[in-house]
């Protein structure tokens, strides 16, 4: 934890008629965090973000941002937030520059023409600043969405699935930008995603939610490394491997076997030991595939929803 609480959510609940979209959710984001907000589609991520930005009202619970209650200090709080909520939508009949100019005028800060061009440059759209947004691809709109979120130099940036629809290069650029904003510009970032890998690359803390409730919360490093890894070894000789394992303690760590693929439950530093053991005993290992427990768990809850 780096500093003061920037986001403090307590017992947050949202009901839509018969559906409980968010159920007694608690979370804290601290100054300087890149906070990963993970969950499968329909887990309640966007509903939570909409409540954070006062787009929808909570049924129960409280939200504090920068130490102040959102309901009573909405305007003051929103001056310090930049956000992308779900897909980026703009006034298609206006240019990228004009869209940002309009949003700048209502951002609570003086936004100069230079600042608009600087942001367009940052998101790689400076050459298309005169083009109408309706001519933009989804990826370009996503970049412009990021631009409008950064325009007024906010302290907290809320990004809801910012890489959706981007190609691998675009995804990498967004990740690099998030890291730049966090490390160089010292922004606090709340990053919602349904992809664990994406969060793992940029976040220091994270929460996994499903069906509106918290499943796992903590430091990314701890969560990813705390539990044993499931590691699959693909070998060249099934019988020889079975005989070899039967003569050693490694057999106790064997979880499952499918022909020449043997899956073990191992500590991180045991992977190399087992690999050496196989090689030294004349078994060729053609692949070592680690699967972390958290990833396994995340995939499982994702599958449940799908």
């Amino acid at each position, binding site marked *: 934890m780096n500093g003061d609480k920037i986001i403090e959510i307590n017992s947050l609940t949202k009901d839509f008629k018969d559906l409980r979209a968010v159920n007694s959710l608690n979370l804290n984001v601290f100054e300087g965090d890149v906070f990963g907000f993970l969950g499968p589609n329909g887990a309640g991520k966007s509903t939570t973000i909409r409540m954070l930005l006062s*787009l929808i009202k909570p049924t129960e619970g409280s939200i504090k941002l920068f130490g102040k209650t959102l309901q009573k200090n909405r*305007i003051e709080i929103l001056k310090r937030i930049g956000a992308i909520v779900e897909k980026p939508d703009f006034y298609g009949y*206006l240019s990228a520059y004009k869209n940002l100019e309009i949003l700048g*005028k209502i951002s609570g800060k003086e936004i100069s023409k230079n600042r608009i061009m600087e942001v367009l440059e940052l998101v790689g759209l400076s050459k298309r600043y005169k083009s109408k947004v309706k001519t933009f691809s989804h990826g370009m709109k996503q970049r412009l969405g990021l631009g409008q979120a950064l325009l007024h130099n906010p302290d907290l940036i809320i990004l809801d699935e910012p890489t959706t629809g981007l190609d691998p290069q675009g995804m990498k650029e967004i990740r690099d930008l998030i890291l730049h904003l966090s490390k160089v510009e010292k922004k606090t970032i709340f990053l919602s995603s349904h992809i664990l890998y994406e969060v793992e690359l940029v976040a220091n803390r994270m929460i996994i939610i499903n069906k509106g409730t918290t499943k796992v919360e903590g430091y990314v490093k701890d969560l990813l490394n705390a539990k044993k890894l499931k590691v699959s070894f693909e070998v060249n000789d099934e019988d020889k491997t079975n005989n070899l394992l039967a003569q050693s303690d490694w057999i106790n760590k064997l979880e499952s076997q499918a022909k020449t693929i043997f899956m073990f439950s191992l500590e991180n530093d045991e992977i190399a030991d087992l690999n050496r053991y196989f090689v030294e005993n004349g078994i060729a290992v053609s692949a070592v595939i680690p699967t972390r427990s958290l990833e396994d768990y995340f995939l499982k809850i994702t599958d449940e929803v799908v």
Partner: protein
Amino acid sequence: MLTLIQIELYKVFKKWRTYIGFIAIGVLVPIIHTAMVFEGSHTLNFMTRNIQESFFFVGNLLNGYLVSYFILTSLAVHIPFLIALVAGDLLAGEATAGTYRMLITRPISRTQIITSKFLAGIIYTNLLILWLAVMSLVVGLIIFGSGELLVISNQTVIIFEKSDILWRFLLAYGFASLGMSVVASLAFLFSSLVENSIGPIVSTMAVIIVFIILSAINIDFFQTIKPYLFTNYILSWRLFFDDPVDFAELTKATSILAGHIAFFFLLALYLFKRKDILT
């Protein structure tokens, strides 16, 4: 707030649909002018056919004032559609485009958003009526010249002197603006309820047409409810062409229309402040 209104007006006037009303009036009124050039005398004879035996008319009765009066009467039912086209899109258009999210996550209150959009709608409405006034009255006077205005109202013939007409038109257009602002407010209210702009346009026109039909039916029950239908007062601009002008009735009509504008606006504000933005 001024910045917000400027932004809303900028958005309104950057949309193609905004110009449909101006183009429609810009095309329709000259067509009526042209028709009046060729057929005006015949129309005037038709209007005065019942009184020609009793009166002898001298001077230029087919003039810009008469044509403008004729146009104002003819277009009263059609202008609301042009108003609803823009006013019905003010909020629903943001929902359709998904831009509500960007607006509401900015440090401005929902009251400011609603008020600025509403005022932009009212300004558009007034500009459209001003355009109608310019096209029908100013262009009419240029083409047909001025003269006395002959008005037949409730079997009564009134002829206004040339010097006694202009103020009546100015106030009539002002009152028409007020009446059309009620239409804009109603479309705006409907616009706050839905997420596409077709619904508010159709609903507004449906309400106006139904109210006009109810007002026109000569059955006691409908005549009883007539005073409660705002459409009954939209055409009260005609009172400016009575002699003497019934200012008491005009004040009542003005209050009722202003009351409707306030009610529709406040209801839209109340609903919007409680609305969950899910688009």
